[in-house]
Protein backbone atom coordinates (compact mmCIF):
# COMPACT_ATOMS: atom_id res chain seq x y z
CA UNK A 1 0.00 0.00 0.00
CA UNK A 2 1.92 2.97 -1.25
CA UNK A 3 -0.93 5.39 -1.83
CA UNK A 4 -2.54 7.65 0.71
CA UNK A 5 -5.88 6.16 1.52
CA UNK A 6 -8.39 8.98 1.54
CA UNK A 7 -9.88 9.77 4.94
CA UNK A 8 -13.07 7.94 5.70
CA UNK A 9 -15.39 10.90 5.89
CA UNK A 10 -14.45 12.21 2.47
CA UNK A 11 -15.23 8.82 1.00
CA UNK A 12 -18.61 8.45 2.63
CA UNK A 13 -20.51 10.32 -0.06
CA UNK A 14 -18.92 8.08 -2.66
CA UNK A 15 -19.99 5.09 -0.67
CA UNK A 16 -23.66 5.89 -0.84
CA UNK A 17 -24.21 5.14 -4.51
CA UNK A 18 -22.88 1.66 -3.96
CA UNK A 19 -26.12 -0.17 -3.40
CA UNK A 20 -24.24 -3.24 -2.29
CA UNK A 21 -22.56 -1.46 0.61
CA UNK A 22 -25.76 0.31 1.57
CA UNK A 23 -27.57 -3.01 1.57
CA UNK A 24 -24.89 -4.48 3.83
CA UNK A 25 -25.07 -1.52 6.19
CA UNK A 26 -28.84 -1.82 6.49
CA UNK A 27 -28.56 -5.56 7.17
CA UNK A 28 -25.97 -4.96 9.87
CA UNK A 29 -28.13 -2.34 11.55
CA UNK A 30 -31.02 -4.81 11.55
CA UNK A 31 -28.89 -7.66 12.94
CA UNK A 32 -27.42 -5.44 15.65
CA UNK A 33 -30.82 -4.07 16.58
CA UNK A 34 -32.26 -7.57 16.76
CA UNK A 35 -29.44 -8.65 19.05
CA UNK A 36 -29.52 -5.57 21.28
CA UNK A 37 -33.29 -5.59 21.60
CA UNK A 38 -33.47 -9.38 22.02
CA UNK A 39 -34.99 -9.21 25.52
CA UNK A 40 -37.84 -7.08 24.19
CA UNK A 41 -38.23 -8.64 20.78
CA UNK A 42 -38.03 -12.27 21.84
CA UNK A 43 -41.48 -13.83 22.11
CA UNK A 44 -40.45 -16.11 25.01
CA UNK A 45 -38.00 -15.97 27.92
CA UNK A 46 -34.56 -17.21 26.91
CA UNK A 47 -34.41 -20.45 28.86
CA UNK A 48 -38.06 -21.28 29.07
CA UNK A 49 -38.27 -25.02 28.54
CA UNK A 50 -41.62 -26.50 27.63
CA UNK A 51 -41.12 -30.26 27.51
CA UNK A 52 -44.61 -30.76 26.14
CA UNK A 53 -43.90 -28.52 23.13
CA UNK A 54 -40.79 -30.25 21.84
CA UNK A 55 -39.86 -30.04 18.17
CA UNK A 56 -42.94 -28.12 17.06
CA UNK A 57 -42.68 -26.99 13.42
CA UNK A 58 -42.87 -23.27 12.62
CA UNK A 59 -46.28 -21.86 13.46
CA UNK A 60 -47.99 -18.66 14.54
CA UNK A 61 -46.88 -19.15 18.17
CA UNK A 62 -43.38 -20.31 17.32
CA UNK A 63 -42.30 -18.66 14.05
CA UNK A 64 -39.13 -20.72 13.79
CA UNK A 65 -40.51 -23.74 15.68
CA UNK A 66 -39.19 -25.22 18.92
CA UNK A 67 -36.08 -27.27 19.62
CA UNK A 68 -35.49 -30.69 21.12
CA UNK A 69 -36.21 -29.57 24.69
CA UNK A 70 -39.10 -27.31 23.78
CA UNK A 71 -37.37 -23.92 23.61
CA UNK A 72 -38.46 -21.31 21.09
CA UNK A 73 -35.92 -21.27 18.24
CA UNK A 74 -36.55 -17.64 17.29
CA UNK A 75 -35.87 -16.53 20.85
CA UNK A 76 -32.60 -18.43 20.96
CA UNK A 77 -31.55 -17.02 17.59
CA UNK A 78 -32.18 -13.46 18.76
CA UNK A 79 -30.13 -14.05 21.90
CA UNK A 80 -27.54 -15.96 19.87
CA UNK A 81 -26.92 -12.79 17.91
CA UNK A 82 -25.74 -11.18 21.12
CA UNK A 83 -23.21 -13.96 21.64
CA UNK A 84 -21.92 -13.83 18.06
CA UNK A 85 -21.69 -10.05 17.87
CA UNK A 86 -20.09 -9.87 21.29
CA UNK A 87 -17.46 -12.41 20.26
CA UNK A 88 -16.80 -10.58 16.99
CA UNK A 89 -16.52 -7.19 18.68
CA UNK A 90 -14.23 -8.51 21.41
CA UNK A 91 -11.97 -10.41 19.00
CA UNK A 92 -11.66 -7.47 16.64
CA UNK A 93 -11.06 -4.97 19.44
CA UNK A 94 -8.35 -7.08 21.02
CA UNK A 95 -6.62 -7.99 17.77
CA UNK A 96 -6.85 -4.53 16.24
CA UNK A 97 -5.50 -2.94 19.40
CA UNK A 98 -2.58 -5.35 19.70
CA UNK A 99 -2.00 -5.64 15.98
CA UNK A 100 -2.09 -1.96 15.12
CA UNK A 101 0.11 -1.00 18.06
CA UNK A 102 2.78 -3.49 17.05
CA UNK A 103 2.39 -2.67 13.37
CA UNK A 104 2.66 1.07 13.77
CA UNK A 105 5.70 0.73 15.99
CA UNK A 106 7.31 -1.71 13.55
CA UNK A 107 6.54 0.40 10.53
CA UNK A 108 7.68 3.65 12.09
CA UNK A 109 10.79 2.32 13.77
CA UNK A 110 11.99 0.17 10.90
CA UNK A 111 15.33 -1.62 11.20
CA UNK A 112 15.88 -4.50 13.54
CA UNK A 113 12.79 -3.91 15.67
CA UNK A 114 10.63 -4.11 12.57
CA UNK A 115 12.33 -7.33 11.49
CA UNK A 116 11.73 -8.99 14.83
CA UNK A 117 8.09 -7.97 14.99
CA UNK A 118 7.41 -8.98 11.42
CA UNK A 119 9.06 -12.40 11.81
CA UNK A 120 6.94 -13.12 14.87
CA UNK A 121 3.93 -11.99 12.86
CA UNK A 122 4.89 -14.37 10.06
CA UNK A 123 4.96 -17.27 12.50
CA UNK A 124 1.42 -16.58 13.63
CA UNK A 125 0.28 -16.05 10.06
CA UNK A 126 1.61 -19.49 9.20
CA UNK A 127 -1.23 -21.04 11.17
CA UNK A 128 -4.55 -20.95 9.41
CA UNK A 129 -6.80 -19.10 11.86
CA UNK A 130 -9.23 -21.92 12.48
CA UNK A 131 -6.43 -24.39 13.14
CA UNK A 132 -4.57 -22.47 15.84
CA UNK A 133 -7.90 -21.53 17.39
CA UNK A 134 -8.77 -25.22 17.39
CA UNK A 135 -5.55 -26.15 19.11
CA UNK A 136 -5.95 -23.41 21.69
CA UNK A 137 -9.60 -24.12 22.27
CA UNK A 138 -8.71 -27.76 22.94
CA UNK A 139 -6.19 -27.02 25.64
CA UNK A 140 -8.27 -24.33 27.33
CA UNK A 141 -11.69 -24.72 28.94
CA UNK A 142 -14.34 -24.45 26.23
CA UNK A 143 -16.43 -21.30 26.49
CA UNK A 144 -17.07 -17.89 25.01
CA UNK A 145 -13.91 -16.39 26.52
CA UNK A 146 -11.78 -19.18 25.11
CA UNK A 147 -13.25 -18.58 21.68
CA UNK A 148 -12.41 -14.90 21.91
CA UNK A 149 -8.86 -15.56 23.06
CA UNK A 150 -8.28 -18.35 20.53
CA UNK A 151 -9.46 -16.32 17.55
CA UNK A 152 -7.77 -13.10 18.65
CA UNK A 153 -4.44 -14.93 18.89
CA UNK A 154 -4.70 -15.80 15.20
CA UNK A 155 -6.18 -12.54 14.04
CA UNK A 156 -3.90 -9.77 15.30
CA UNK A 157 -1.00 -10.44 12.87
CA UNK A 158 -3.12 -9.32 9.92
CA UNK A 159 -3.48 -5.90 11.47
CA UNK A 160 0.20 -5.76 12.26
CA UNK A 161 1.13 -6.50 8.67
CA UNK A 162 -1.43 -4.04 7.31
CA UNK A 163 -0.63 -1.12 9.61
CA UNK A 164 3.12 -1.73 9.40
CA UNK A 165 3.10 -1.26 5.64
CA UNK A 166 0.95 1.87 5.91
CA UNK A 167 3.04 3.26 8.74
CA UNK A 168 6.28 2.57 6.88
CA UNK A 169 5.08 4.54 3.88
CA UNK A 170 3.88 7.41 6.04
CA UNK A 171 7.08 7.51 8.09
CA UNK A 172 8.98 8.62 4.99
CA UNK A 173 6.63 11.51 4.17
CA UNK A 174 8.16 15.00 4.21
CA UNK A 175 5.90 16.28 6.98
CA UNK A 176 6.91 13.40 9.23
CA UNK A 177 10.55 14.09 8.41
CA UNK A 178 9.97 17.72 9.23
CA UNK A 179 8.39 16.86 12.56
CA UNK A 180 11.32 14.59 13.37
CA UNK A 181 13.81 17.33 12.52
CA UNK A 182 11.94 19.73 14.79
CA UNK A 183 12.62 17.34 17.62
CA UNK A 184 9.09 16.09 18.11
CA UNK A 185 9.39 12.87 20.15
CA UNK A 186 8.65 9.64 18.33
CA UNK A 187 5.58 8.61 20.38
CA UNK A 188 3.98 11.95 19.57
CA UNK A 189 4.71 11.62 15.85
CA UNK A 190 3.22 8.15 15.86
CA UNK A 191 0.13 9.38 17.70
CA UNK A 192 -0.34 12.50 15.58
CA UNK A 193 0.60 11.42 12.08
CA UNK A 194 1.23 7.72 11.68
CA UNK A 195 -1.69 6.29 13.63
CA UNK A 196 -4.52 8.38 12.13
CA UNK A 197 -3.36 7.58 8.62
CA UNK A 198 -3.23 3.88 9.36
CA UNK A 199 -6.76 3.79 10.67
CA UNK A 200 -8.73 3.91 7.42
CA UNK A 201 -7.39 0.67 5.93
CA UNK A 202 -7.73 -0.94 9.34
CA UNK A 203 -11.39 0.05 9.57
CA UNK A 204 -12.10 -1.49 6.19
CA UNK A 205 -10.25 -4.62 7.24
CA UNK A 206 -12.25 -4.76 10.45
CA UNK A 207 -15.49 -4.78 8.53
CA UNK A 208 -14.21 -7.42 6.13
CA UNK A 209 -12.96 -9.53 9.03
CA UNK A 210 -16.09 -9.39 11.17
CA UNK A 211 -17.76 -11.94 8.91
CA UNK A 212 -14.75 -14.25 9.11
CA UNK A 213 -14.63 -14.02 12.91
CA UNK A 214 -18.33 -14.84 13.18
CA UNK A 215 -17.87 -17.87 10.91
CA UNK A 216 -14.80 -19.06 12.84
CA UNK A 217 -16.53 -18.63 16.20
CA UNK A 218 -19.55 -20.54 14.94
CA UNK A 219 -17.28 -23.30 13.65
CA UNK A 220 -15.54 -23.62 17.02
CA UNK A 221 -18.88 -23.79 18.79
CA UNK A 222 -20.08 -26.33 16.25
CA UNK A 223 -17.09 -28.49 17.15
CA UNK A 224 -18.08 -28.18 20.80
CA UNK A 225 -15.05 -26.05 21.65
CA UNK A 226 -16.87 -22.74 22.04
CA UNK A 227 -19.97 -21.58 23.82
CA UNK A 228 -21.57 -24.25 26.03
CA UNK A 229 -25.13 -24.90 27.10
CA UNK A 230 -27.19 -23.04 28.14
CA UNK A 231 -25.64 -20.12 26.23
CA UNK A 232 -27.58 -19.41 23.06
CA UNK A 233 -25.08 -19.61 20.21
CA UNK A 234 -25.81 -20.31 16.56
CA UNK A 235 -22.99 -22.76 15.88
CA UNK A 236 -23.87 -24.68 19.02
CA UNK A 237 -27.55 -24.79 17.98
CA UNK A 238 -26.56 -26.31 14.64
CA UNK A 239 -24.41 -28.91 16.36
CA UNK A 240 -27.11 -29.91 18.83
CA UNK A 241 -29.73 -30.19 16.17
CA UNK A 242 -27.67 -31.76 13.39
CA UNK A 243 -29.08 -35.25 13.74
CA UNK A 244 -32.58 -33.79 13.47
CA UNK A 245 -32.07 -32.11 10.10
CA UNK A 246 -34.06 -34.69 8.15
CA UNK A 247 -36.97 -34.82 10.54
CA UNK A 248 -37.04 -31.35 12.12
CA UNK A 249 -35.21 -29.12 9.69
CA UNK A 250 -36.08 -25.84 11.41
CA UNK A 251 -33.92 -26.64 14.43
CA UNK A 252 -30.82 -26.54 12.21
CA UNK A 253 -31.84 -24.43 9.22
CA UNK A 254 -32.63 -21.17 11.02
CA UNK A 255 -29.48 -20.88 13.16
CA UNK A 256 -27.40 -21.58 10.05
CA UNK A 257 -29.25 -18.93 8.10
CA UNK A 258 -28.63 -16.49 10.94
CA UNK A 259 -24.87 -17.10 10.68
CA UNK A 260 -25.01 -16.79 6.91
CA UNK A 261 -26.98 -13.55 7.01
CA UNK A 262 -24.72 -11.89 9.58
CA UNK A 263 -21.46 -12.91 7.90
CA UNK A 264 -22.93 -11.87 4.57
CA UNK A 265 -23.92 -8.44 5.87
CA UNK A 266 -20.41 -7.74 7.15
CA UNK A 267 -18.75 -9.05 4.02
CA UNK A 268 -20.96 -6.94 1.78
CA UNK A 269 -20.31 -3.80 3.80
CA UNK A 270 -16.58 -4.53 3.92
CA UNK A 271 -16.39 -5.05 0.16
CA UNK A 272 -18.33 -1.86 -0.41
CA UNK A 273 -16.09 0.10 1.95
CA UNK A 274 -12.98 -1.28 0.35
CA UNK A 275 -14.28 -0.33 -3.07
CA UNK A 276 -15.23 3.16 -1.99
CA UNK A 277 -11.89 3.76 -0.31
CA UNK A 278 -9.79 2.33 -3.09
CA UNK A 279 -8.58 5.14 -5.34
CA UNK A 280 -8.18 2.69 -8.21
CA UNK A 281 -11.81 1.81 -7.81
CA UNK A 282 -13.49 0.31 -10.84
CA UNK A 283 -17.11 1.13 -11.01
Amino acid at each position, binding site marked *: MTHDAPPLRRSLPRLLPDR*FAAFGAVLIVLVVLAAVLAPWLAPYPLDEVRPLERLRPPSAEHWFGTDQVGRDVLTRILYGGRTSLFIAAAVLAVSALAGVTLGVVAGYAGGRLRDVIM*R*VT*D*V*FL*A*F*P*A*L*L*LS*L*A*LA*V*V*LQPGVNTVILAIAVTWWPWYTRLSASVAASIATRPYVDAARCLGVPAPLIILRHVLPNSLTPVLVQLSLDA*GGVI*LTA*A*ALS*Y*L*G*LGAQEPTAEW*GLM*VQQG*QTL*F*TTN*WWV*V*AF*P*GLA*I*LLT*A*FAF*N*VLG*EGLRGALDP*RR*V*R
Partner: protein
Amino acid sequence: MLRHLARRLGQALLVVAGVVVLTFAVMRVVPGDPAVAFAGPKATPEQLAAARERFGLDDPLPAQLLAYVRDLVTGDWGISLRTRQPVRDDLALAFPASLELVGAALLLAIAVGIPLGVLAARYKTKFPDFGVRLGSMLAVSVPVFWLALALQTLFAGALGWFPVAGEYDARLDTTSPLTLWTNITAVDALITGNWPILTSTLHHLVLPALVVAAYPAGVIAQMTRAALIEEAGQDHARMGRALGFGETSVLTRFALRPALNPVLSLIALVFAYALVNGFLVEAVFNWPGLGRYAAESIRSLDTPAIAGVTLLVALVYVLVNLVVDLLQGLVDPRVRVR
Protein backbone atom coordinates in the same frame (compact mmCIF):
# COMPACT_ATOMS: atom_id res chain seq x y z
CA MET B 1 18.00 -13.82 -7.80
CA LEU B 2 19.97 -16.32 -5.73
CA ARG B 3 20.04 -13.81 -2.90
CA HIS B 4 16.30 -13.45 -3.08
CA LEU B 5 15.97 -17.23 -2.96
CA ALA B 6 18.30 -17.55 0.00
CA ARG B 7 16.53 -14.74 1.81
CA ARG B 8 13.11 -16.26 1.36
CA LEU B 9 14.36 -19.71 2.33
CA GLY B 10 15.93 -18.24 5.44
CA GLN B 11 12.70 -16.49 6.35
CA ALA B 12 10.71 -19.67 5.78
CA LEU B 13 13.06 -21.64 8.02
CA LEU B 14 12.69 -18.98 10.69
CA VAL B 15 8.92 -19.24 10.43
CA VAL B 16 9.08 -23.02 10.68
CA ALA B 17 11.21 -22.68 13.81
CA GLY B 18 8.64 -20.28 15.23
CA VAL B 19 5.84 -22.64 14.33
CA VAL B 20 7.53 -25.48 16.18
CA VAL B 21 8.11 -23.34 19.26
CA LEU B 22 4.54 -22.09 19.22
CA THR B 23 3.11 -25.56 18.83
CA PHE B 24 5.30 -26.74 21.67
CA ALA B 25 4.16 -23.82 23.79
CA VAL B 26 0.49 -24.42 23.12
CA MET B 27 0.67 -28.15 23.67
CA ARG B 28 3.05 -28.49 26.60
CA VAL B 29 2.85 -25.31 28.59
CA VAL B 30 -0.76 -24.23 28.40
CA PRO B 31 -2.66 -27.37 29.35
CA GLY B 32 -1.06 -27.64 32.76
CA ASP B 33 0.09 -31.19 33.36
CA PRO B 34 0.35 -33.42 30.28
CA ALA B 35 1.21 -36.32 32.55
CA VAL B 36 -2.36 -36.27 33.85
CA ALA B 37 -3.63 -36.28 30.29
CA PHE B 38 -1.53 -39.32 29.48
CA ALA B 39 -1.91 -41.30 32.66
CA GLY B 40 -5.56 -40.39 33.12
CA PRO B 41 -7.32 -38.61 35.99
CA LYS B 42 -7.39 -41.66 38.25
CA ALA B 43 -3.67 -42.35 38.01
CA THR B 44 -1.72 -43.03 41.16
CA PRO B 45 1.14 -40.70 42.10
CA GLU B 46 3.55 -43.43 41.02
CA GLN B 47 1.98 -43.69 37.57
CA LEU B 48 2.09 -39.91 37.25
CA ALA B 49 5.74 -39.85 38.19
CA ALA B 50 6.44 -42.57 35.64
CA ALA B 51 4.67 -40.55 32.97
CA ARG B 52 6.63 -37.44 33.94
CA GLU B 53 9.81 -39.41 33.74
CA ARG B 54 8.93 -40.88 30.36
CA PHE B 55 8.12 -37.53 28.75
CA GLY B 56 10.94 -35.68 30.43
CA LEU B 57 8.48 -33.32 32.07
CA ASP B 58 10.76 -32.69 35.04
CA ASP B 59 13.45 -31.24 32.80
CA PRO B 60 13.64 -27.45 32.36
CA LEU B 61 11.47 -26.15 29.50
CA PRO B 62 14.33 -25.31 27.10
CA ALA B 63 15.61 -28.86 27.46
CA GLN B 64 12.12 -30.17 26.76
CA LEU B 65 11.88 -27.96 23.69
CA LEU B 66 15.23 -29.22 22.43
CA ALA B 67 14.15 -32.81 22.94
CA TYR B 68 10.90 -32.04 21.09
CA VAL B 69 12.77 -30.55 18.14
CA ARG B 70 15.18 -33.49 18.08
CA ASP B 71 12.27 -35.93 18.01
CA LEU B 72 10.53 -34.03 15.23
CA VAL B 73 13.63 -33.91 13.07
CA THR B 74 14.30 -37.61 13.51
CA GLY B 75 10.73 -38.30 12.43
CA ASP B 76 9.31 -39.08 15.86
CA TRP B 77 6.10 -37.04 16.01
CA GLY B 78 4.94 -38.77 19.15
CA ILE B 79 2.44 -41.52 19.84
CA SER B 80 -1.25 -40.80 19.56
CA LEU B 81 -2.98 -41.27 22.91
CA ARG B 82 -6.09 -42.47 21.10
CA THR B 83 -4.93 -44.77 18.32
CA ARG B 84 -1.70 -45.75 20.12
CA GLN B 85 -0.03 -45.48 16.71
CA PRO B 86 2.85 -43.16 15.80
CA VAL B 87 1.26 -39.81 14.91
CA ARG B 88 3.38 -39.71 11.76
CA ASP B 89 1.80 -42.92 10.46
CA ASP B 90 -1.68 -41.65 11.23
CA LEU B 91 -0.95 -38.43 9.36
CA ALA B 92 0.49 -40.31 6.39
CA LEU B 93 -2.88 -42.04 6.03
CA ALA B 94 -5.12 -39.06 6.73
CA PHE B 95 -3.33 -36.31 4.83
CA PRO B 96 -3.69 -37.82 1.33
CA ALA B 97 -7.45 -38.14 1.84
CA SER B 98 -7.62 -34.45 2.73
CA LEU B 99 -5.50 -33.60 -0.29
CA GLU B 100 -7.92 -35.54 -2.46
CA LEU B 101 -10.90 -33.63 -1.11
CA VAL B 102 -9.26 -30.20 -1.25
CA GLY B 103 -7.74 -30.87 -4.67
CA ALA B 104 -11.10 -31.86 -6.11
CA ALA B 105 -12.72 -28.84 -4.47
CA LEU B 106 -10.13 -26.44 -5.86
CA LEU B 107 -10.48 -27.85 -9.37
CA LEU B 108 -14.22 -27.37 -9.05
CA ALA B 109 -13.78 -23.86 -7.67
CA ILE B 110 -11.51 -22.89 -10.57
CA ALA B 111 -13.83 -24.41 -13.15
CA VAL B 112 -16.76 -22.46 -11.74
CA GLY B 113 -15.14 -19.33 -10.34
CA ILE B 114 -13.16 -18.15 -13.35
CA PRO B 115 -16.00 -18.33 -15.91
CA LEU B 116 -18.32 -16.59 -13.44
CA GLY B 117 -15.74 -13.88 -12.87
CA VAL B 118 -15.44 -13.39 -16.63
CA LEU B 119 -19.21 -13.23 -16.95
CA ALA B 120 -19.44 -10.59 -14.22
CA ALA B 121 -16.66 -8.49 -15.74
CA ARG B 122 -18.21 -8.74 -19.19
CA TYR B 123 -21.57 -7.46 -17.94
CA LYS B 124 -20.17 -5.10 -15.32
CA THR B 125 -22.89 -3.32 -13.32
CA LYS B 126 -25.54 -5.29 -15.24
CA PHE B 127 -27.65 -8.12 -13.94
CA PRO B 128 -25.13 -10.99 -14.42
CA ASP B 129 -22.54 -8.96 -12.52
CA PHE B 130 -24.98 -8.37 -9.72
CA GLY B 131 -25.86 -12.05 -9.63
CA VAL B 132 -22.25 -13.19 -9.51
CA ARG B 133 -21.31 -10.65 -6.84
CA LEU B 134 -24.28 -11.66 -4.73
CA GLY B 135 -23.61 -15.36 -5.25
CA SER B 136 -19.91 -15.15 -4.49
CA MET B 137 -20.61 -13.07 -1.41
CA LEU B 138 -23.04 -15.71 -0.18
CA ALA B 139 -20.52 -18.44 -0.97
CA VAL B 140 -17.85 -16.86 1.23
CA SER B 141 -20.34 -16.13 4.01
CA VAL B 142 -21.98 -19.51 4.38
CA PRO B 143 -20.89 -21.58 7.40
CA VAL B 144 -19.35 -24.67 5.80
CA PHE B 145 -20.50 -27.12 8.44
CA TRP B 146 -24.06 -25.96 7.99
CA LEU B 147 -23.87 -26.11 4.20
CA ALA B 148 -22.42 -29.61 4.52
CA LEU B 149 -25.31 -30.69 6.75
CA ALA B 150 -27.87 -29.08 4.45
CA LEU B 151 -26.54 -30.69 1.26
CA GLN B 152 -26.11 -34.03 3.01
CA THR B 153 -29.67 -33.97 4.27
CA LEU B 154 -31.11 -32.87 0.96
CA PHE B 155 -29.12 -34.69 -1.73
CA ALA B 156 -27.89 -37.73 0.18
CA GLY B 157 -30.70 -38.17 2.69
CA ALA B 158 -33.95 -37.04 1.14
CA LEU B 159 -33.18 -37.47 -2.56
CA GLY B 160 -30.63 -40.26 -2.23
CA TRP B 161 -28.61 -39.08 -5.23
CA PHE B 162 -25.29 -39.31 -3.44
CA PRO B 163 -23.87 -41.43 -0.63
CA VAL B 164 -24.25 -39.96 2.84
CA ALA B 165 -20.69 -40.42 4.08
CA GLY B 166 -17.33 -42.09 3.60
CA GLU B 167 -14.71 -42.07 0.88
CA TYR B 168 -15.89 -45.08 -1.13
CA ASP B 169 -18.06 -48.12 -0.73
CA ALA B 170 -16.21 -50.27 1.83
CA ARG B 171 -17.56 -53.47 0.26
CA LEU B 172 -15.32 -52.81 -2.73
CA ASP B 173 -12.30 -53.53 -0.54
CA THR B 174 -13.15 -57.23 -0.80
CA THR B 175 -14.39 -57.37 -4.40
CA SER B 176 -11.72 -55.17 -5.96
CA PRO B 177 -9.03 -54.32 -3.41
CA LEU B 178 -7.00 -51.19 -4.02
CA THR B 179 -3.23 -51.18 -4.38
CA LEU B 180 -1.83 -48.15 -2.59
CA TRP B 181 0.80 -45.97 -4.19
CA THR B 182 0.17 -42.41 -3.19
CA ASN B 183 -2.50 -43.07 -0.52
CA ILE B 184 -4.76 -40.77 -2.51
CA THR B 185 -7.59 -43.13 -3.30
CA ALA B 186 -8.82 -41.56 -6.53
CA VAL B 187 -5.28 -41.29 -7.92
CA ASP B 188 -4.34 -44.84 -6.89
CA ALA B 189 -7.56 -46.21 -8.37
CA LEU B 190 -6.85 -44.34 -11.57
CA ILE B 191 -3.26 -45.51 -12.03
CA THR B 192 -4.07 -49.10 -11.12
CA GLY B 193 -7.18 -49.06 -13.31
CA ASN B 194 -9.49 -49.92 -10.43
CA TRP B 195 -12.68 -48.52 -11.97
CA PRO B 196 -15.19 -49.66 -9.32
CA ILE B 197 -13.30 -47.84 -6.58
CA LEU B 198 -12.62 -44.83 -8.79
CA THR B 199 -16.27 -44.28 -9.67
CA SER B 200 -17.34 -44.94 -6.11
CA THR B 201 -14.78 -42.41 -4.81
CA LEU B 202 -15.84 -39.77 -7.30
CA HIS B 203 -19.46 -40.36 -6.39
CA HIS B 204 -18.63 -39.93 -2.72
CA LEU B 205 -16.54 -36.85 -3.47
CA VAL B 206 -19.26 -34.77 -5.11
CA LEU B 207 -21.04 -33.38 -2.06
CA PRO B 208 -18.07 -32.71 0.24
CA ALA B 209 -16.07 -31.23 -2.63
CA LEU B 210 -18.99 -28.95 -3.51
CA VAL B 211 -19.11 -27.66 0.06
CA VAL B 212 -15.35 -27.12 0.35
CA ALA B 213 -15.37 -25.45 -3.08
CA ALA B 214 -17.93 -22.80 -2.09
CA TYR B 215 -15.49 -20.43 -0.44
CA PRO B 216 -12.65 -20.68 -3.00
CA ALA B 217 -15.11 -20.40 -5.87
CA GLY B 218 -16.52 -17.20 -4.40
CA VAL B 219 -13.09 -15.69 -3.81
CA ILE B 220 -11.83 -16.74 -7.24
CA ALA B 221 -14.89 -15.29 -8.99
CA GLN B 222 -14.46 -11.98 -7.15
CA MET B 223 -10.75 -11.84 -7.87
CA THR B 224 -11.16 -12.78 -11.53
CA ARG B 225 -13.79 -10.09 -11.91
CA ALA B 226 -11.66 -7.41 -10.28
CA ALA B 227 -8.48 -8.37 -12.16
CA LEU B 228 -10.32 -8.54 -15.48
CA ILE B 229 -11.97 -5.17 -14.99
CA GLU B 230 -8.57 -3.73 -14.20
CA GLU B 231 -7.02 -5.37 -17.27
CA ALA B 232 -9.96 -4.22 -19.40
CA GLY B 233 -9.01 -0.63 -18.57
CA GLN B 234 -5.44 -1.12 -19.74
CA ASP B 235 -4.05 0.15 -23.02
CA HIS B 236 -3.83 -3.30 -24.56
CA ALA B 237 -7.54 -3.91 -24.01
CA ARG B 238 -8.25 -0.52 -25.56
CA MET B 239 -6.04 -1.55 -28.47
CA GLY B 240 -8.06 -4.74 -28.84
CA ARG B 241 -11.23 -2.70 -29.04
CA ALA B 242 -9.58 -0.31 -31.50
CA LEU B 243 -8.78 -3.31 -33.67
CA GLY B 244 -12.47 -4.06 -33.89
CA PHE B 245 -12.69 -6.92 -31.38
CA GLY B 246 -15.92 -7.16 -29.44
CA GLU B 247 -15.93 -6.80 -25.68
CA THR B 248 -16.18 -10.54 -25.06
CA SER B 249 -13.16 -11.23 -27.28
CA VAL B 250 -11.19 -8.45 -25.65
CA LEU B 251 -11.84 -9.96 -22.23
CA THR B 252 -11.39 -13.64 -22.98
CA ARG B 253 -8.65 -13.52 -25.63
CA PHE B 254 -6.50 -10.62 -24.47
CA ALA B 255 -7.29 -9.60 -20.90
CA LEU B 256 -7.94 -12.98 -19.29
CA ARG B 257 -4.44 -14.42 -19.36
CA PRO B 258 -2.69 -11.47 -17.75
CA ALA B 259 -5.58 -11.22 -15.28
CA LEU B 260 -5.12 -14.84 -14.24
CA ASN B 261 -1.77 -14.12 -12.63
CA PRO B 262 -3.11 -12.65 -9.40
CA VAL B 263 -5.87 -15.24 -9.48
CA LEU B 264 -3.37 -18.10 -9.60
CA SER B 265 -1.39 -16.84 -6.63
CA LEU B 266 -4.68 -16.40 -4.82
CA ILE B 267 -5.54 -20.05 -5.48
CA ALA B 268 -2.35 -21.15 -3.79
CA LEU B 269 -3.24 -19.10 -0.74
CA VAL B 270 -6.83 -20.30 -0.66
CA PHE B 271 -5.50 -23.86 -0.63
CA ALA B 272 -4.48 -23.73 3.01
CA TYR B 273 -7.75 -22.12 3.98
CA ALA B 274 -9.69 -24.79 2.11
CA LEU B 275 -7.65 -27.49 3.83
CA VAL B 276 -8.73 -26.31 7.26
CA ASN B 277 -12.28 -25.54 6.16
CA GLY B 278 -12.29 -29.09 4.87
CA PHE B 279 -11.85 -30.26 8.47
CA LEU B 280 -15.40 -29.30 9.30
CA VAL B 281 -16.71 -30.86 6.13
CA GLU B 282 -14.79 -34.07 6.75
CA ALA B 283 -16.38 -34.30 10.16
CA VAL B 284 -19.85 -34.11 8.62
CA PHE B 285 -19.23 -36.51 5.72
CA ASN B 286 -17.02 -38.83 7.75
CA TRP B 287 -14.23 -38.35 5.21
CA PRO B 288 -11.14 -40.19 6.47
CA GLY B 289 -8.85 -37.15 6.28
CA LEU B 290 -6.98 -34.87 8.64
CA GLY B 291 -10.17 -33.15 9.70
CA ARG B 292 -11.85 -36.27 10.96
CA TYR B 293 -8.58 -37.31 12.57
CA ALA B 294 -8.34 -33.90 14.25
CA ALA B 295 -11.97 -33.96 15.35
CA GLU B 296 -11.58 -37.40 16.93
CA SER B 297 -8.29 -36.36 18.54
CA ILE B 298 -9.96 -33.28 19.96
CA ARG B 299 -12.76 -35.34 21.42
CA SER B 300 -10.27 -37.56 23.25
CA LEU B 301 -7.92 -34.67 24.15
CA ASP B 302 -5.14 -36.40 22.24
CA THR B 303 -2.51 -33.66 22.43
CA PRO B 304 0.30 -35.32 20.43
CA ALA B 305 -2.11 -35.97 17.56
CA ILE B 306 -3.47 -32.41 17.63
CA ALA B 307 0.06 -31.04 17.73
CA GLY B 308 0.94 -33.22 14.76
CA VAL B 309 -1.99 -32.00 12.70
CA THR B 310 -1.29 -28.38 13.63
CA LEU B 311 2.34 -28.70 12.75
CA LEU B 312 1.70 -30.49 9.48
CA VAL B 313 -0.84 -27.97 8.24
CA ALA B 314 1.33 -25.05 9.27
CA LEU B 315 4.27 -26.59 7.40
CA VAL B 316 2.14 -27.07 4.29
CA TYR B 317 1.02 -23.49 4.64
CA VAL B 318 4.59 -22.19 4.89
CA LEU B 319 5.60 -24.32 1.92
CA VAL B 320 2.75 -23.10 -0.26
CA ASN B 321 3.47 -19.50 0.65
CA LEU B 322 7.13 -19.98 -0.13
CA VAL B 323 6.41 -21.47 -3.54
CA VAL B 324 3.97 -18.68 -4.44
CA ASP B 325 6.46 -16.10 -3.26
CA LEU B 326 9.33 -17.56 -5.23
CA LEU B 327 7.23 -17.89 -8.36
CA GLN B 328 6.26 -14.25 -8.10
CA GLY B 329 9.81 -13.18 -7.43
CA LEU B 330 11.27 -15.29 -10.21
CA VAL B 331 9.15 -13.76 -12.89
CA ASP B 332 7.82 -10.31 -13.46
CA PRO B 333 4.11 -11.02 -13.15
CA ARG B 334 3.37 -8.34 -15.74
CA VAL B 335 5.55 -9.88 -18.37
CA ARG B 336 5.93 -13.56 -17.76
CA VAL B 337 2.56 -15.05 -18.59
CA ARG B 338 3.35 -17.72 -21.10
